[in-house]
Protein backbone atom coordinates (compact mmCIF):
# COMPACT_ATOMS: atom_id res chain seq x y z
CA UNK A 1 0.00 0.00 0.00
CA UNK A 2 2.81 2.37 0.90
CA UNK A 3 4.28 2.01 -2.58
CA UNK A 4 0.95 2.89 -4.14
CA UNK A 5 0.46 5.97 -1.98
CA UNK A 6 3.92 7.16 -2.94
CA UNK A 7 3.12 6.72 -6.59
CA UNK A 8 -0.21 8.47 -6.14
CA UNK A 9 1.42 11.46 -4.46
CA UNK A 10 4.11 11.56 -7.14
CA UNK A 11 1.51 11.83 -9.86
CA UNK A 12 -0.35 14.54 -7.96
CA UNK A 13 2.90 16.48 -7.60
CA UNK A 14 3.62 16.12 -11.28
CA UNK A 15 0.14 17.31 -12.18
CA UNK A 16 0.48 20.38 -9.97
CA UNK A 17 3.83 21.49 -11.33
CA UNK A 18 2.81 21.11 -14.96
CA UNK A 19 2.89 24.32 -16.96
CA UNK A 20 -0.66 25.51 -17.39
CA UNK A 21 -1.82 26.48 -20.88
CA UNK A 22 -2.69 30.01 -19.74
CA UNK A 23 0.73 30.83 -18.28
CA UNK A 24 2.16 32.75 -21.25
CA UNK A 25 -1.12 34.47 -22.03
CA UNK A 26 -1.59 35.77 -18.47
CA UNK A 27 2.05 36.85 -18.38
CA UNK A 28 1.45 39.02 -21.44
CA UNK A 29 -1.51 40.67 -19.72
CA UNK A 30 0.56 41.24 -16.61
CA UNK A 31 3.42 42.70 -18.61
CA UNK A 32 1.11 45.19 -20.27
CA UNK A 33 -0.32 46.30 -16.95
CA UNK A 34 3.12 46.66 -15.38
CA UNK A 35 4.48 48.63 -18.30
CA UNK A 36 1.53 50.99 -18.39
CA UNK A 37 1.80 51.64 -14.65
CA UNK A 38 5.47 52.44 -15.11
CA UNK A 39 4.91 54.62 -18.16
CA UNK A 40 5.26 57.90 -16.30
CA UNK A 41 8.77 57.15 -15.15
CA UNK A 42 9.57 55.77 -18.60
CA UNK A 43 8.53 59.05 -20.15
CA UNK A 44 10.77 60.91 -17.74
CA UNK A 45 13.61 58.64 -18.70
CA UNK A 46 13.09 59.28 -22.41
CA UNK A 47 13.17 63.02 -21.75
CA UNK A 48 16.39 62.66 -19.79
CA UNK A 49 17.95 60.61 -22.58
CA UNK A 50 16.95 63.10 -25.21
CA UNK A 51 18.64 65.86 -23.20
CA UNK A 52 21.77 63.77 -22.86
CA UNK A 53 21.84 62.92 -26.55
CA UNK A 54 21.32 66.51 -27.61
CA UNK A 55 24.15 67.62 -25.33
CA UNK A 56 26.32 64.82 -26.69
CA UNK A 57 25.44 65.78 -30.25
CA UNK A 58 26.37 69.41 -29.76
CA UNK A 59 29.63 68.35 -28.10
CA UNK A 60 30.37 66.14 -31.07
CA UNK A 61 29.78 69.04 -33.44
CA UNK A 62 32.23 71.14 -31.40
CA UNK A 63 34.81 68.38 -31.60
CA UNK A 64 34.37 68.22 -35.36
CA UNK A 65 34.81 71.96 -35.71
CA UNK A 66 37.88 72.01 -33.48
CA UNK A 67 39.30 69.04 -35.35
CA UNK A 68 38.63 70.75 -38.63
CA UNK A 69 40.34 73.95 -37.54
CA UNK A 70 43.27 72.04 -36.18
CA UNK A 71 43.90 69.98 -39.27
CA UNK A 72 42.78 72.61 -41.72
CA UNK A 73 46.20 73.00 -43.29
CA UNK A 74 46.84 69.29 -43.41
CA UNK A 75 44.43 67.45 -45.65
CA UNK A 76 45.92 64.05 -45.03
CA UNK A 77 45.35 64.14 -41.29
CA UNK A 78 41.81 65.29 -41.71
CA UNK A 79 40.94 62.26 -43.75
CA UNK A 80 42.46 59.99 -41.17
CA UNK A 81 40.53 61.66 -38.37
CA UNK A 82 37.31 60.94 -40.25
CA UNK A 83 38.24 57.27 -40.54
CA UNK A 84 38.61 57.07 -36.79
CA UNK A 85 35.16 58.51 -36.18
CA UNK A 86 33.43 56.28 -38.69
CA UNK A 87 33.86 53.39 -36.28
CA UNK A 88 35.34 50.81 -38.61
CA UNK A 89 34.68 47.69 -36.61
CA UNK A 90 36.74 45.10 -38.48
CA UNK A 91 40.19 46.41 -37.72
CA UNK A 92 42.58 46.73 -34.84
CA UNK A 93 43.60 50.39 -34.58
CA UNK A 94 46.67 52.09 -33.21
CA UNK A 95 46.31 55.79 -32.59
CA UNK A 96 49.04 58.15 -31.54
CA UNK A 97 48.29 60.73 -28.85
CA UNK A 98 49.24 63.55 -31.17
CA UNK A 99 46.36 62.46 -33.35
CA UNK A 100 48.16 62.57 -36.66
CA UNK A 101 49.11 58.94 -36.79
CA UNK A 102 46.39 56.38 -37.22
CA UNK A 103 47.32 52.90 -38.24
CA UNK A 104 44.73 50.39 -39.36
CA UNK A 105 45.83 46.84 -39.06
CA UNK A 106 44.28 44.46 -41.51
CA UNK A 107 42.20 41.50 -40.46
CA UNK A 108 44.50 38.73 -39.37
CA UNK A 109 44.23 36.35 -36.45
CA UNK A 110 47.03 36.35 -33.89
CA UNK A 111 48.26 39.80 -34.76
CA UNK A 112 51.29 40.92 -32.74
CA UNK A 113 52.01 44.60 -32.38
CA UNK A 114 55.66 45.29 -31.63
CA UNK A 115 56.33 48.58 -29.92
CA UNK A 116 59.60 49.79 -31.37
CA UNK A 117 62.63 50.37 -29.23
CA UNK A 118 63.13 54.08 -28.68
CA UNK A 119 65.82 55.70 -30.75
CA UNK A 120 68.52 57.38 -28.75
CA UNK A 121 67.76 60.92 -29.87
CA UNK A 122 64.27 61.03 -28.34
CA UNK A 123 64.07 64.10 -26.14
CA UNK A 124 62.95 63.93 -22.50
CA UNK A 125 59.94 66.05 -23.38
CA UNK A 126 58.43 63.55 -25.78
CA UNK A 127 59.13 60.71 -23.37
CA UNK A 128 56.55 62.09 -21.00
CA UNK A 129 53.86 63.10 -23.38
CA UNK A 130 53.72 60.88 -26.41
CA UNK A 131 51.54 57.79 -26.09
CA UNK A 132 49.86 55.30 -28.35
CA UNK A 133 46.50 53.66 -27.94
CA UNK A 134 45.66 50.27 -29.36
CA UNK A 135 41.98 49.48 -29.79
CA UNK A 136 40.62 46.04 -30.58
CA UNK A 137 37.24 45.58 -32.28
CA UNK A 138 34.55 43.04 -31.40
CA UNK A 139 35.50 39.44 -31.84
CA UNK A 140 39.28 39.92 -32.11
CA UNK A 141 42.20 39.62 -29.76
CA UNK A 142 45.83 40.64 -30.28
CA UNK A 143 49.17 40.84 -28.54
CA UNK A 144 51.43 43.80 -27.78
CA UNK A 145 55.14 43.23 -27.21
CA UNK A 146 56.74 46.09 -25.32
CA UNK A 147 60.40 47.10 -25.80
CA UNK A 148 61.37 45.47 -22.49
CA UNK A 149 60.00 42.12 -23.69
CA UNK A 150 56.79 42.18 -21.64
CA UNK A 151 53.72 40.98 -23.51
CA UNK A 152 50.17 42.16 -23.17
CA UNK A 153 47.38 40.03 -24.60
CA UNK A 154 44.46 42.28 -25.46
CA UNK A 155 40.90 40.91 -25.46
CA UNK A 156 38.12 42.14 -27.75
CA UNK A 157 36.56 45.58 -27.31
CA UNK A 158 39.49 46.80 -25.29
CA UNK A 159 41.73 49.84 -25.48
CA UNK A 160 45.27 49.92 -24.12
CA UNK A 161 47.28 53.15 -23.86
CA UNK A 162 51.04 52.98 -23.42
CA UNK A 163 53.89 55.46 -23.79
CA UNK A 164 55.91 55.29 -26.96
CA UNK A 165 58.97 55.32 -24.76
CA UNK A 166 58.81 54.04 -21.19
CA UNK A 167 60.19 56.29 -18.50
CA UNK A 168 63.34 55.18 -16.73
CA UNK A 169 61.79 54.67 -13.30
CA UNK A 170 58.45 53.07 -14.18
CA UNK A 171 56.39 51.33 -16.86
CA UNK A 172 52.74 52.41 -16.97
CA UNK A 173 49.81 51.43 -19.18
CA UNK A 174 46.10 52.30 -19.10
CA UNK A 175 43.40 49.73 -19.83
CA UNK A 176 39.69 49.81 -20.54
CA UNK A 177 38.62 46.22 -21.10
CA UNK A 178 40.50 42.99 -20.51
CA UNK A 179 44.21 42.20 -20.76
CA UNK A 180 46.49 39.37 -19.71
CA UNK A 181 50.02 40.56 -18.93
CA UNK A 182 53.29 38.69 -18.74
CA UNK A 183 55.66 41.21 -17.26
CA UNK A 184 59.40 40.71 -17.27
CA UNK A 185 61.01 41.01 -13.90
CA UNK A 186 62.69 44.35 -13.26
CA UNK A 187 62.30 45.28 -9.62
CA UNK A 188 63.67 48.78 -9.96
CA UNK A 189 61.20 49.62 -12.73
CA UNK A 190 57.71 48.73 -11.47
CA UNK A 191 54.97 48.08 -14.00
CA UNK A 192 51.55 49.69 -13.48
CA UNK A 193 48.20 48.86 -15.04
CA UNK A 194 45.66 51.63 -14.54
CA UNK A 195 41.93 51.02 -14.92
CA UNK A 196 38.92 53.21 -14.27
CA UNK A 197 38.55 51.85 -10.73
CA UNK A 198 41.94 50.71 -9.50
CA UNK A 199 45.65 50.39 -10.26
CA UNK A 200 47.73 47.21 -10.33
CA UNK A 201 51.40 47.50 -9.35
CA UNK A 202 53.65 44.74 -10.61
CA UNK A 203 57.26 43.77 -10.15
CA UNK A 204 57.34 40.80 -12.49
CA UNK A 205 54.51 38.36 -12.94
CA UNK A 206 51.60 36.96 -14.94
CA UNK A 207 48.08 38.22 -14.31
CA UNK A 208 44.73 38.98 -15.92
CA UNK A 209 42.83 42.27 -15.57
CA UNK A 210 39.21 42.53 -16.63
CA UNK A 211 37.90 46.08 -16.27
CA UNK A 212 35.41 47.15 -18.89
CA UNK A 213 34.12 50.68 -18.47
CA UNK A 214 30.58 49.64 -19.25
CA UNK A 215 30.33 46.78 -16.78
CA UNK A 216 30.11 47.36 -13.05
CA UNK A 217 32.18 44.43 -11.85
CA UNK A 218 35.93 44.25 -12.54
CA UNK A 219 38.47 41.69 -11.47
CA UNK A 220 42.16 40.88 -11.31
CA UNK A 221 43.39 37.28 -11.38
CA UNK A 222 46.99 36.56 -10.45
CA UNK A 223 48.60 33.54 -12.11
CA UNK A 224 52.09 33.80 -10.63
CA UNK A 225 54.31 36.29 -8.82
CA UNK A 226 52.87 39.09 -6.75
CA UNK A 227 50.90 42.23 -7.48
CA UNK A 228 49.65 45.09 -5.38
CA UNK A 229 46.22 46.55 -6.08
CA UNK A 230 45.26 50.03 -5.05
CA UNK A 231 42.07 52.01 -5.28
CA UNK A 232 40.91 55.05 -3.36
CA UNK A 233 44.13 55.08 -1.34
CA UNK A 234 43.77 51.50 -0.13
CA UNK A 235 46.26 48.82 -1.05
CA UNK A 236 45.87 45.04 -1.25
CA UNK A 237 48.41 42.33 -2.06
CA UNK A 238 47.30 39.45 -4.21
CA UNK A 239 48.75 35.95 -3.99
CA UNK A 240 48.93 33.49 -6.88
CA UNK A 241 45.62 31.87 -7.84
CA UNK A 242 43.66 34.58 -6.11
CA UNK A 243 41.05 36.80 -7.70
CA UNK A 244 40.10 40.24 -6.43
CA UNK A 245 36.68 41.54 -7.42
CA UNK A 246 35.83 45.22 -7.64
CA UNK A 247 32.49 46.94 -7.88
CA UNK A 248 33.42 50.09 -9.81
CA UNK A 249 36.28 51.43 -7.68
CA UNK A 250 35.41 49.56 -4.48
CA UNK A 251 37.08 46.31 -3.55
CA UNK A 252 34.42 43.72 -2.69
CA UNK A 253 35.92 40.27 -2.32
CA UNK A 254 38.88 37.95 -2.63
CA UNK A 255 38.55 34.39 -3.89
CA UNK A 256 40.75 31.44 -4.78
CA UNK A 257 40.19 30.46 -8.40
CA UNK A 258 41.31 28.14 -11.15
CA UNK A 259 43.28 30.71 -13.12
CA UNK A 260 43.09 28.95 -16.49
CA UNK A 261 39.35 29.67 -16.59
CA UNK A 262 40.14 33.38 -16.61
CA UNK A 263 43.06 33.37 -19.02
CA UNK A 264 41.86 30.86 -21.64
CA UNK A 265 40.78 33.69 -23.95
CA UNK A 266 44.47 34.37 -24.61
CA UNK A 267 44.62 31.11 -26.55
CA UNK A 268 41.35 31.90 -28.30
CA UNK A 269 39.08 29.81 -26.09
CA UNK A 270 36.41 30.50 -23.56
CA UNK A 271 36.48 27.76 -20.96
CA UNK A 272 33.35 27.57 -18.84
CA UNK A 273 32.94 25.46 -15.75
CA UNK A 274 29.48 25.30 -14.14
CA UNK A 275 28.62 28.82 -15.18
CA UNK A 276 25.05 30.09 -15.35
CA UNK A 277 23.83 31.01 -18.84
CA UNK A 278 23.53 34.60 -17.64
CA UNK A 279 27.31 34.82 -17.18
CA UNK A 280 28.12 32.89 -20.37
CA UNK A 281 26.03 35.23 -22.50
CA UNK A 282 27.55 38.24 -20.76
CA UNK A 283 30.99 37.07 -21.84
CA UNK A 284 29.84 36.45 -25.40
CA UNK A 285 28.21 39.90 -25.48
CA UNK A 286 31.44 41.48 -24.29
CA UNK A 287 33.64 39.63 -26.75
CA UNK A 288 31.52 39.98 -29.86
CA UNK A 289 29.91 43.31 -29.02
CA UNK A 290 26.38 41.98 -29.54
CA UNK A 291 23.19 42.11 -27.49
CA UNK A 292 21.76 38.85 -26.14
CA UNK A 293 18.56 38.59 -24.15
CA UNK A 294 18.00 35.35 -22.32
CA UNK A 295 14.73 33.98 -20.98
CA UNK A 296 14.97 34.39 -17.17
CA UNK A 297 13.60 30.90 -16.63
CA UNK A 298 16.80 29.32 -17.95
CA UNK A 299 19.23 32.09 -17.02
CA UNK A 300 20.45 30.33 -13.90
CA UNK A 301 21.01 26.92 -15.49
CA UNK A 302 24.62 25.85 -15.19
CA UNK A 303 26.72 24.82 -18.15
CA UNK A 304 30.22 23.57 -18.74
CA UNK A 305 32.03 23.77 -22.02
CA UNK A 306 34.65 25.19 -24.28
CA UNK A 307 33.98 27.79 -26.97
CA UNK A 308 36.33 28.52 -29.83
CA UNK A 309 36.49 32.28 -30.12
CA UNK A 310 37.88 32.28 -33.64
CA UNK A 311 34.35 31.50 -34.82
CA UNK A 312 31.84 34.24 -35.41
CA UNK A 313 29.02 34.87 -32.98
CA UNK A 314 26.36 33.15 -35.11
CA UNK A 315 28.35 29.90 -35.16
CA UNK A 316 28.90 30.04 -31.42
CA UNK A 317 25.23 30.65 -30.62
CA UNK A 318 24.21 27.99 -33.12
CA UNK A 319 26.33 25.45 -31.36
CA UNK A 320 24.99 26.44 -27.96
CA UNK A 321 21.40 26.23 -29.11
CA UNK A 322 21.89 22.73 -30.48
CA UNK A 323 23.99 21.28 -27.68
CA UNK A 324 21.81 22.75 -24.97
CA UNK A 325 18.54 22.37 -26.91
CA UNK A 326 17.70 26.03 -26.65
CA UNK A 327 16.13 28.29 -29.22
CA UNK A 328 18.00 31.26 -30.61
CA UNK A 329 16.26 33.87 -32.74
CA UNK A 330 17.61 37.13 -34.04
CA UNK A 331 15.22 40.00 -33.63
CA UNK A 332 16.48 43.34 -34.93
CA UNK A 333 19.94 43.51 -33.36
CA UNK A 334 19.23 41.30 -30.37
CA UNK A 335 19.67 37.56 -30.10
CA UNK A 336 16.78 36.10 -28.11
CA UNK A 337 17.46 32.85 -26.30
CA UNK A 338 14.63 30.75 -24.96
CA UNK A 339 13.71 27.21 -24.07
CA UNK A 340 12.88 24.89 -26.94
Amino acid at each position, binding site marked *: MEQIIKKYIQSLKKGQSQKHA*SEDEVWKL*LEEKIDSSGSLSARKRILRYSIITSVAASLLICIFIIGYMRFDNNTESRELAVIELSNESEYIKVISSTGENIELISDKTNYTHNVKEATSDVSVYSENTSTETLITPSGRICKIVLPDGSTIHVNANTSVTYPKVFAKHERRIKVDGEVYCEVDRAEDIPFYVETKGFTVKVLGTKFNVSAYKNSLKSNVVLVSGEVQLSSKGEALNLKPRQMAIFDKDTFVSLRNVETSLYTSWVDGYLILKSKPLRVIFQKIEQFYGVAISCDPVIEEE*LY*TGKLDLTNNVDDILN*LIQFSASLKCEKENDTYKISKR
Partner: protein
Amino acid sequence: MSFYIISRSQESPMTDIEIWERIENGDKKAFELLYRRYYSPLLNYAISFNYDEELVKDSLQDLFIKIFTNPKKMNALPYVKAYLYRCLINSLKDKKKTAKKTEDFEDELIRYGISDQNLKALFKEGDEDLKKIRRLHSAIDKLSDNQKNALSIRFVQEFTWKEMSLILDISEQSCMNLIGRTIIKLRKLL
Protein backbone atom coordinates in the same frame (compact mmCIF):
# COMPACT_ATOMS: atom_id res chain seq x y z
CA MET B 1 34.51 24.18 -33.32
CA SER B 2 34.87 22.57 -29.97
CA PHE B 3 32.01 23.37 -27.70
CA TYR B 4 30.67 20.49 -25.76
CA ILE B 5 28.06 20.61 -23.12
CA ILE B 6 28.79 18.64 -20.03
CA SER B 7 26.07 19.33 -17.55
CA ARG B 8 22.76 20.95 -17.19
CA SER B 9 22.65 20.99 -13.45
CA GLN B 10 20.46 23.42 -11.64
CA GLU B 11 22.16 23.25 -8.30
CA SER B 12 22.15 26.93 -7.60
CA PRO B 13 18.99 28.57 -8.89
CA MET B 14 18.03 31.72 -7.06
CA THR B 15 16.13 31.14 -3.84
CA ASP B 16 12.67 32.62 -3.36
CA ILE B 17 14.11 35.01 -0.82
CA GLU B 18 16.75 36.30 -3.24
CA ILE B 19 14.09 36.70 -5.92
CA TRP B 20 11.80 38.59 -3.56
CA GLU B 21 14.58 40.95 -2.53
CA ARG B 22 15.28 41.68 -6.18
CA ILE B 23 11.62 42.38 -6.80
CA GLU B 24 11.70 44.85 -3.93
CA ASN B 25 14.40 46.65 -5.89
CA GLY B 26 12.12 46.79 -8.93
CA ASP B 27 13.80 43.95 -10.85
CA LYS B 28 11.35 42.90 -13.56
CA LYS B 29 13.35 39.82 -14.52
CA ALA B 30 13.18 38.52 -10.96
CA PHE B 31 9.46 39.19 -11.01
CA GLU B 32 9.06 37.07 -14.13
CA LEU B 33 11.12 34.35 -12.50
CA LEU B 34 8.76 34.27 -9.50
CA TYR B 35 5.77 34.26 -11.83
CA ARG B 36 7.14 31.38 -13.91
CA ARG B 37 8.00 29.44 -10.79
CA TYR B 38 4.60 29.69 -9.12
CA TYR B 39 1.86 30.70 -11.54
CA SER B 40 1.08 27.20 -12.83
CA PRO B 41 1.49 25.38 -9.50
CA LEU B 42 -0.83 27.88 -7.77
CA LEU B 43 -3.38 27.63 -10.56
CA ASN B 44 -3.27 23.82 -10.64
CA TYR B 45 -3.60 23.72 -6.89
CA ALA B 46 -6.70 25.89 -6.88
CA ILE B 47 -8.27 24.10 -9.83
CA SER B 48 -7.82 20.75 -8.10
CA PHE B 49 -10.18 22.12 -5.44
CA ASN B 50 -12.71 22.81 -8.12
CA TYR B 51 -12.41 26.56 -8.12
CA ASP B 52 -13.46 28.12 -11.39
CA GLU B 53 -10.45 28.53 -13.66
CA GLU B 54 -11.31 32.09 -14.71
CA LEU B 55 -11.82 33.12 -11.10
CA VAL B 56 -8.40 31.71 -10.16
CA LYS B 57 -6.72 33.41 -13.11
CA ASP B 58 -8.18 36.77 -12.07
CA SER B 59 -7.09 36.28 -8.48
CA LEU B 60 -3.58 35.36 -9.57
CA GLN B 61 -3.33 38.37 -11.85
CA ASP B 62 -4.37 40.69 -9.03
CA LEU B 63 -1.93 38.99 -6.69
CA PHE B 64 1.04 39.29 -9.03
CA ILE B 65 0.27 42.92 -9.88
CA LYS B 66 0.22 43.66 -6.19
CA ILE B 67 3.56 41.90 -5.76
CA PHE B 68 5.21 43.94 -8.48
CA THR B 69 3.79 47.32 -7.56
CA ASN B 70 4.11 47.08 -3.80
CA PRO B 71 6.30 44.19 -2.65
CA LYS B 72 7.58 46.00 0.41
CA LYS B 73 4.09 46.23 1.91
CA MET B 74 3.68 42.48 1.67
CA ASN B 75 4.76 40.21 4.43
CA ALA B 76 6.26 37.50 2.25
CA LEU B 77 9.72 37.06 3.73
CA PRO B 78 11.07 34.59 4.58
CA TYR B 79 8.31 32.07 3.66
CA VAL B 80 7.60 33.34 0.16
CA LYS B 81 5.96 30.21 -1.23
CA ALA B 82 3.70 29.74 1.77
CA TYR B 83 2.77 33.41 1.60
CA LEU B 84 1.69 33.10 -2.04
CA TYR B 85 -0.54 30.10 -1.29
CA ARG B 86 -2.08 31.91 1.62
CA CYS B 87 -2.81 35.02 -0.43
CA LEU B 88 -4.43 32.94 -3.17
CA ILE B 89 -6.58 30.95 -0.74
CA ASN B 90 -7.77 34.09 1.01
CA SER B 91 -8.63 35.95 -2.14
CA LEU B 92 -10.50 32.93 -3.53
CA LYS B 93 -12.50 32.61 -0.32
CA ASP B 94 -13.38 36.31 -0.47
CA LYS B 95 -14.43 36.10 -4.10
CA LYS B 96 -16.51 33.01 -3.45
CA LYS B 97 -18.34 34.72 -0.61
CA THR B 98 -19.30 37.72 -2.73
CA ALA B 99 -20.22 35.46 -5.64
CA LYS B 100 -22.46 33.33 -3.44
CA LYS B 101 -24.57 36.32 -2.51
CA THR B 102 -25.55 36.92 -6.11
CA GLU B 103 -25.80 33.41 -7.53
CA ASP B 104 -25.72 29.97 -6.02
CA PHE B 105 -22.72 27.84 -6.57
CA GLU B 106 -24.62 24.80 -7.79
CA ASP B 107 -21.66 22.47 -7.91
CA GLU B 108 -19.86 22.37 -4.61
CA LEU B 109 -18.60 18.85 -5.23
CA ILE B 110 -14.87 18.59 -4.96
CA ARG B 111 -13.23 16.56 -7.70
CA TYR B 112 -9.88 16.25 -6.04
CA GLY B 113 -6.64 15.29 -7.67
CA ILE B 114 -6.29 13.32 -10.88
CA SER B 115 -8.86 11.82 -13.19
CA ASP B 116 -9.63 8.14 -13.41
CA GLN B 117 -8.02 8.05 -16.84
CA ASN B 118 -4.72 9.23 -15.40
CA LEU B 119 -4.98 6.63 -12.67
CA LYS B 120 -5.33 3.93 -15.30
CA ALA B 121 -2.25 5.20 -17.10
CA LEU B 122 -0.34 5.15 -13.86
CA PHE B 123 -1.13 1.62 -12.78
CA LYS B 124 -1.36 -0.50 -15.88
CA GLU B 125 0.69 -3.37 -14.49
CA GLY B 126 -1.73 -5.05 -12.10
CA ASP B 127 -5.46 -4.77 -11.66
CA GLU B 128 -4.84 -5.21 -7.96
CA ASP B 129 -2.95 -1.93 -7.70
CA LEU B 130 -5.49 -0.05 -9.72
CA LYS B 131 -8.28 -1.29 -7.45
CA LYS B 132 -6.38 -0.17 -4.38
CA ILE B 133 -5.65 3.26 -5.77
CA ARG B 134 -9.30 3.76 -6.73
CA ARG B 135 -10.28 2.90 -3.20
CA LEU B 136 -7.79 5.42 -1.84
CA HIS B 137 -8.95 8.01 -4.34
CA SER B 138 -12.63 7.67 -3.45
CA ALA B 139 -11.78 7.65 0.26
CA ILE B 140 -9.98 10.97 -0.12
CA ASP B 141 -12.98 12.27 -2.01
CA LYS B 142 -15.15 11.66 1.04
CA LEU B 143 -13.02 13.88 3.27
CA SER B 144 -13.99 17.47 3.98
CA ASP B 145 -12.51 20.37 1.97
CA ASN B 146 -10.45 21.37 4.90
CA GLN B 147 -9.01 17.89 5.35
CA LYS B 148 -8.21 17.50 1.65
CA ASN B 149 -6.52 20.86 1.64
CA ALA B 150 -4.44 19.87 4.66
CA LEU B 151 -3.32 16.65 2.99
CA SER B 152 -2.43 18.48 -0.19
CA ILE B 153 -0.43 21.16 1.62
CA ARG B 154 1.43 18.67 3.75
CA PHE B 155 2.07 15.79 1.33
CA VAL B 156 1.84 17.19 -2.20
CA GLN B 157 3.20 20.69 -1.77
CA GLU B 158 5.47 19.41 1.02
CA PHE B 159 5.24 22.49 3.18
CA THR B 160 6.83 22.43 6.62
CA TRP B 161 4.64 22.62 9.74
CA LYS B 162 5.69 26.24 10.16
CA GLU B 163 4.68 27.11 6.59
CA MET B 164 1.46 25.15 6.92
CA SER B 165 0.53 27.11 10.02
CA LEU B 166 1.10 30.35 8.08
CA ILE B 167 -1.04 29.23 5.18
CA LEU B 168 -3.98 28.03 7.28
CA ASP B 169 -3.54 30.70 9.94
CA ILE B 170 -3.61 28.18 12.78
CA SER B 171 -0.87 27.06 15.17
CA GLU B 172 1.66 24.37 14.26
CA GLN B 173 0.15 22.08 16.88
CA SER B 174 -3.28 22.48 15.31
CA CYS B 175 -1.78 21.57 11.93
CA MET B 176 -0.35 18.36 13.35
CA ASN B 177 -3.68 17.52 15.00
CA LEU B 178 -5.53 18.22 11.77
CA ILE B 179 -3.26 15.93 9.76
CA GLY B 180 -3.42 13.25 12.47
CA ARG B 181 -7.22 13.29 12.56
CA THR B 182 -7.42 13.28 8.76
CA ILE B 183 -5.22 10.21 8.47
CA ILE B 184 -7.26 8.34 11.09
CA LYS B 185 -10.43 9.15 9.19
CA LEU B 186 -8.86 8.09 5.92
CA ARG B 187 -7.87 4.73 7.44
CA LYS B 188 -11.46 4.13 8.54
CA LEU B 189 -12.77 4.99 5.08
CA LEU B 190 -10.39 2.53 3.50
